[in-house]
């Protein structure tokens, strides 16, 4: 060893080792560092021997964790020493003390290069190791060609070429743009013919990196890879030292198979055949043995082979073989193997046709659900969930329910959700479904989300056959002494709606039902009480002929809650008591809930969302596409009347009613349902409420309006209790509808400076705008289209914080056929995407109209396109480095469009596209100037990189001198790219970032909604 000669070094090391504590060690190290400093500073210079010794000491100190911030010069200079021991220490110390960003490395590049192109192969190896370890950009730029040459040279020994391959791999990974790999397919093919396994393994690593970036150029290498596999797995033609526990170089096998997975398919039939032969051999030849190392190696190969088989869509026979093999795995005692078996089986579900084979192992998988190891239990649950279909749903769900009682708390929520979804998806009959969910609530009430029981209610409401059964079941559960609150909710709801169907059975008289439910009242929390109150009202309604005793009891409850502190409860109690005094009219008002329209279950949607999160291989999703959910369709009940297709209803927000007028008889606010007026609705109400509520507005029978509002505008966010609202009195649907789509008009105005903002039969609002740097002047034209005057005209501006808006006065009345101009001054204070809203109301005859309109004073209005040349662009681009000044984001779900279209779009947003700046023709570079009071004129640069293969996604980089501006501009462009093509019904929700002050008119546009419904 090179150290043997250096006494000073070994003395130092033994000193350090003899230190009794850290403190003394530090003292000793500091002393030594002082000594080394003195020696390095010595004018007389150092002998090579001394230099070597001190540099070794420095390395040792550095390894102990102390800072060494000097002496790099000496280390680097040792690299150029002629003798091996000195060169070695130079290389080692340089690669451990310096990183790629150090300036000192520049000094070394030339020496390193000389060593690489030199003849001495030990020096070559040292140099390659250094380059591979540091791998900086400068090294890549100046040395990559030499390393490539070395890799291909035939005169070098395998040792050197091996290192060269790995060194190149590292350079390529770090700076793929610097290492030139054009035309490497031939060379790669040549390398894959290599006989020496060491070189081959390293080259294969390089190959994997290359194909992962671009597989298209390497088709010629594919047969070679198969040959390599053949050589290893079939012919076993390798030297002894490359077998590991009898397995021929498992690493190379795994790498080769990984490389093959980057190619979309194997087309050549011969190659394919021989590949499958190899895979067959791997599958056949693997078994579980005693030796852990051998197992690890052979299983690594096996699982990679499985992945390849799945990737290649092999024949069914082979698939079944795989499953059989995995079946063997999950029966093994060793938990690691069982885990892998289960996991891979879940992955296998992606492939069609193997489910039946997997089902054979169902019993075994269910056993795994009871495994002591939670990760195995989770995998088993995933697998069961994935493999469930109509044929085995009953077994699996029952198994899950049983397991629920004993499962870990951490798993219960997931478990109950999955059980509910499976029950819904694959229910053989609906009474079974109701049974399952009620059991689920009974067993794991805390873990059952509201969606689950909402869904049950939907089912029962839509299936008349089911109603008596469900009511009976609910009654049975209520009989139990201690039940979960969710169970109280669902039972109370069901009994309220359907208990009259049971009336003839013993113990089911309204009175008994009432007392049964009323027993639970003291135990429940505030959100449940409204549900119970509704139930009481319904029971009261159903008890015909009226039972005065029951009536008195219920009235007592209502009057007690009339003074409840909770507004929701108080209001309900007050309303119900008023309603119940109406006598016969009560029956009409409290009619049975109408049927729900069919739509995609929010549960399934939720499950899909969570899956997308976990990046779980989407077996279930795939299958969901193949087999349409038979939920709801198993019933042959006609569903709803004239139910619109689900796509249009899906995102409809819950209309919330303004009920200020409910006490006044004249019903000024007949537009209460118009959700265009509705700010509350913009808080995204859970879709489940959409499920339960949206039809109410349409199907409720017209009724006296004085009692209409069971929903409370004060509470703002809709509560779960709303789900139970009585069949409402939706009021007249509004007579005044806007002409044209407000959202589209707004979008158009974002691009243009003048146009129509809003129009209905009575009024037309036009806009004309002028913009100058950060200021603007908008003129709003209010035109009365009628022969009668418009009165009570009001225009209010709700300005976001970043805009200063001054609206001149608006006259109270607009004379017939006249147009009024209202100038509006706009000053932009700082960048923001928030939009100003114009709240416009007028009265025409008896109709009060109130609309909220977004004003097109949006971000892009304060942009000024500016052309930028390459000389200006690049320094700017570079100087704005990294977040928050420069932000990058991959945008998915973009409306596909051609590059030209996108360029036009950007230009229309006053972002000037500068062609020719980016060498890649698929990219767009745009520049503009943004004006606001806080930023003044600010240059903004945008770069959009598109993928010609997938037009729905792109990468966007936005840079400017202001972090807020960068963020806002990025979000703005993103919104525009995603949402431009607003369909006429505009079901697509606006991006979530839309500010709350910005009512999503597009989706709640009453006109559009009604047009779709009626």
């Amino acid at each position: 060893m090179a150290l043997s000669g250096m006494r000073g070094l070994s003395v130092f090391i033994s000193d350090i080792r003899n230190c009794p504590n850290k403190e003394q060690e530090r003292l000793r190290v500091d002393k030594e560092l002082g000594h080394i400093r003195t020696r390095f500073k010595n004018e007389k210079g150092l002998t090579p021997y001394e230099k070597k010794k001190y540099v070794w000491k420095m390395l040792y100190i550095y390894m102990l964790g102390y800072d060494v911030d000097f002496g790099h010069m000496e280390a680097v200079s040792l690299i150029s020493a002629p003798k091996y021991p000195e060169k070695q220490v130079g290389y080692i110390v340089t690669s451990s003390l310096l990183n790629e960003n150090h300036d000192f490395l520049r000094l070394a590049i030339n020496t390193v290069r000389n060593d690489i192109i030199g003849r001495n192969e030990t020096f070559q190896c040292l140099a390659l190791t250094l380059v591979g370890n540091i791998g900086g950009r400068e090294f890549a730029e100046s040395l990559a060609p030499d390393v490539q040459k070395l890799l291909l040279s035939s005169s070098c020994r395998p040792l050197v070429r091996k290192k060269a391959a790995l060194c190149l791999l590292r350079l390529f990974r770090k700076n793929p743009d610097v290492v030139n790999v054009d035309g490497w397919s031939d060379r790669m093919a040549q390398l894959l013919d290599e006989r020496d396994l060491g070189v081959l393994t390293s080259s294969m690593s390089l190959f994997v990196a290359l194909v992962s970036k671009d597989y298209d150029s390497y088709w010629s290498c594919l047969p070679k890879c198969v040959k390599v596999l053949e050589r290893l797995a079939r012919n076993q033609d390798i030297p002894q030292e490359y077998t590991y526990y009898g397995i021929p170089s498992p690493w190379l096998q795994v790498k080769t198979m990984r490389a093959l997975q980057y190619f979309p398919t194997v087309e050549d039939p011969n190659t394919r055949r021989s590949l499958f032969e190899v895979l067959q051999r791997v599958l056949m030849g693997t078994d579980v043995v005693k030796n852990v190392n051998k197992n690890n190696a052979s299983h690594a190969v096996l699982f990679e082979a499985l992945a390849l088989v799945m990737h290649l869509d092999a024949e069914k026979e082979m698939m079944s073989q795989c499953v059989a093999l995995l079946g063997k795995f999950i029966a093994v005692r060793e938990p690691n193997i069982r885990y892998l078996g289960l996991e891979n089986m879940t992955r296998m579900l992606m492939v069609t046709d193997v489910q039946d084979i997997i089902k054979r192992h169902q019993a075994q998988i269910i056993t795994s659900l009871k495994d002591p190891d939670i990760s195995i239990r989770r995998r088993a649950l995933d697998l069961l969930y994935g493999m469930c279909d109509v044929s085995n749903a009953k077994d699996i769900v029952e198994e899950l329910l049983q397991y629920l009682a004993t499962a870990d708390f951490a798993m219960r929520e997931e478990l109950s959700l999955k059980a509910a979804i499976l029950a819904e998806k694959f229910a053989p009959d609906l009474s079974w479904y109701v049974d399952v969910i009620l059991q689920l609530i009974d067993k794991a009430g805390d873990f059952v989300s509201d969606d689950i029981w909402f869904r049950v209610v939907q089912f029962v409401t839509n299936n008349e056959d089911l109603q008596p059964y469900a009511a009976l079941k609910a009654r049975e559960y209520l009989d139990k002494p201690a039940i979960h609150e969710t169970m109280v909710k669902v039972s109370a709801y069901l009994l309220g709606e359907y208990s009259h169907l049971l009336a003839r059975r013993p113990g089911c008289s309204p009175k008994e039902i009432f007392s049964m439910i009323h027993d639970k009242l003291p135990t429940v929390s505030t959100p449940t009480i409204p549900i119970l109150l509704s139930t009481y009202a319904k029971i009261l309604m159903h008890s015909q002929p009226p039972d005065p005793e029951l009536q008195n009891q219920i009235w007592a409850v209502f009057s007690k809650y009339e003074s409840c502190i909770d507004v929701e409860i108080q209001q309900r109690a007050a309303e119900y008591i008023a309603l119940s005094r109406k006598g016969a009219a009560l029956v009409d008002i409290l009619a049975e809930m109408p049927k729900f329209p069919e739509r995609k279950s929010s549960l399934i949607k939720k499950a899909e969302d969570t899956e997308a999160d976990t990046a779980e291989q989407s077996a279930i999703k795939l299958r969901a596409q193949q087999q349409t959910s038979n939920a709801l369709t198993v019933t042959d009940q006609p569903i709803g009347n004239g139910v619109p297709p689900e796509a249009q209803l899906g995102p409809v927000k819950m209309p919330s009613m303004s009920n200020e007028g409910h006490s006044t008889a004249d019903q000024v606010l007949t537009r209460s349902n118009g959700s265009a007026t509705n700010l509350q609705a913009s808080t995204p109400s859970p879709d489940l409420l959409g499920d339960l509520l949206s039809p109410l507005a349409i199907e409720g029978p017209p009724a006296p309006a004085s009692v209409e509002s069971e929903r409370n505008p004060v509470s703002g966010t809709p509560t779960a209790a709303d789900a139970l609202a009585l069949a409402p009195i939706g009021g007249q649907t509004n007579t005044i509808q806007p002409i044209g789509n407000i959202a589209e008009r707004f979008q158009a105005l974002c691009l243009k400076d003048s146009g129509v903002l809003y129009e209905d039969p009575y009024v037309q609002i036009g806009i004309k705008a002028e913009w100058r740097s950060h200021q603007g002047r908008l003129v709003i034209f209010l035109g009365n289209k009628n022969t009668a005057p418009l009165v009570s005209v009001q225009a209010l501006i709700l300005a976001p914080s970043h805009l200063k808006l001054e609206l001149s006065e608006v006259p109270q009345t607009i004379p017939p056929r006249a147009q009024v101009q209202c100038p509006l001054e706009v000053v932009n204070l700082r960048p923001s995407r928030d939009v100003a809203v114009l709240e416009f109301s007028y009265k025409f005859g008896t109709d009060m109209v109130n609309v909220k309109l977004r004003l097109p004073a949006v971000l892009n209005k304060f942009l000024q396109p500016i052309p930028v040349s390459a000389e200006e662009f690049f320094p700017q681009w570079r100087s704005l480095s990294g977040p928050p000044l420069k932000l990058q984001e991959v945008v998915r779900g973009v409306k596909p469009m051609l590059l030209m279209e996108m360029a036009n779009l950007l230009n229309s947003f006053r972002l000037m596209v500068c062609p020719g700046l980016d060498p890649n023709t698929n990219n767009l570079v745009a520049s503009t100037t943004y004006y606001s009071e806080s930023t003044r004129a600010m240059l903004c640069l945008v770069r959009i990189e598109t993928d010609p293969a997938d037009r729905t996604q792109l990468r966007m980089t936005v840079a400017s001198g202001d972090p807020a501006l960068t963020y806002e501009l990025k979000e703005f462009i993103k919104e525009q790219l995603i949402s431009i093509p607003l369909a006429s019904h505009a079901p697509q929700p606006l991006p979530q970032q839309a500010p709350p002050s910005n009512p999503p008119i597009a989706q709640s546009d009453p006109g559009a909604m009604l047009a779709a419904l009626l």
Partner: protein
Amino acid sequence: MPVSASAIYFLNLRGDVLINRLYRDDVGGNMVDAFRLHIMQTKELGSCPVRQIGGCSFLYMRISNVYIVIVVSTNANVASAFKFVVEAVALFKSYFGGAFDEDAIRNNFVLIYELLDEIMDFGYPQNLSPEMLKLYITQQGVRSPFSSKPKEKIVPNATLQVTGAVGWRREGLVYKKNEVFLDIVESVNLLMSSKGSVLSCDVTGKILMKCFLSGMPDLKLGLNDKIGLEKESQLKSRPAKSGKTIELDDVTFHQCVNLTRFNTEKTVSFVPPDGEFELMKYRITEGVNLPFRVLPTIKELGQARVEVNVKVKSAFGAKMFALGVVIKIPVPKQTAKTSFQVTSGRVKYNAAINCLVWKIRKFPGQTEPTLSAEVELISTISEKKSWTRPPIQMEFQVPMFTASGLRVRFLKVWEKSGYNTVEWVRYITKAGSYEIRC
């Protein structure tokens, strides 16, 4: 609130437990592992003497090469705990008759266990006075041959002693030669700016006594402090003598001092314990006579050179001299070469503490030796952080000098038998943290 220690551990520097005693079972036996892992093996060791880990507080102190750790699980009185440790160490020292270190502990396991049982009960500190404990803990420490000869026979009625009126002194002591030694030891803490203005300065002093007196003597001490002098001048109804009067802050007395008499008559009178004890402690913040002034000029010349000139002036009388003066002048971390010239003493560069260490064995009063040094630095790749310029530190001892100016005016001994006594008085001033910014 007393200490209520749950356990006490003695660890060596590696963190091995030398000896321990659990007083309560509310902490686990492995708490010391937590201490080792979270305190000893981190850089925070020494930065804060109280640390909380997992609901327990660790109060620790390093004495030579031993860590003494008190573990408490309640909200304990920390000051009392540290006082306990200090007193316990003094007690051990008096038993071992010498140093307290790892070896001493290893040699005296049985004795220490016996003492630990005695000085703390259920976590509450008990009598820690060596005189008392020696009455009934008769275990002898292993003494080095040079320590004083073993004590004569022990008086049997220990209980009486402990509970008696003069609990700290045995009756029936007889000395052939009655002697009293009194030392005033002061340490000066100073922080001075580079321009020579005093930023903060105080003196902490203590009066140590050693009594070898027969019988039950009554002693009376007179100092030139303000209270005492004023009282005296009142009593004798004549103006105070000219000369400085010293104002003492924060005076604390040994328990033997009769406080009622101090409160009424403003005299320090006491029946001393036998042997060595600390009579009183005090602090002075004003009117401090600084023994040394340091005038440094340190110039950084470019990146690679530093020029250091330090002049030290002694401000005490020309006949006196300071001993063991050490001046530590900090230099940058990347110092490579040093060269220096001094008018007296010796200089060395110590890389371990990044200082030039200037030692002067004997430093006469009213002199001003100088040091001029040139330091060459090595270039580094780390970012050019400017040097933080830590302060110059100084150590010294000046005999027969008090920084406060405190003097003993009289020390009277009165005993029934009326024997003659010999009183010896010494003064010494040491450096506490004596720092000069540069």
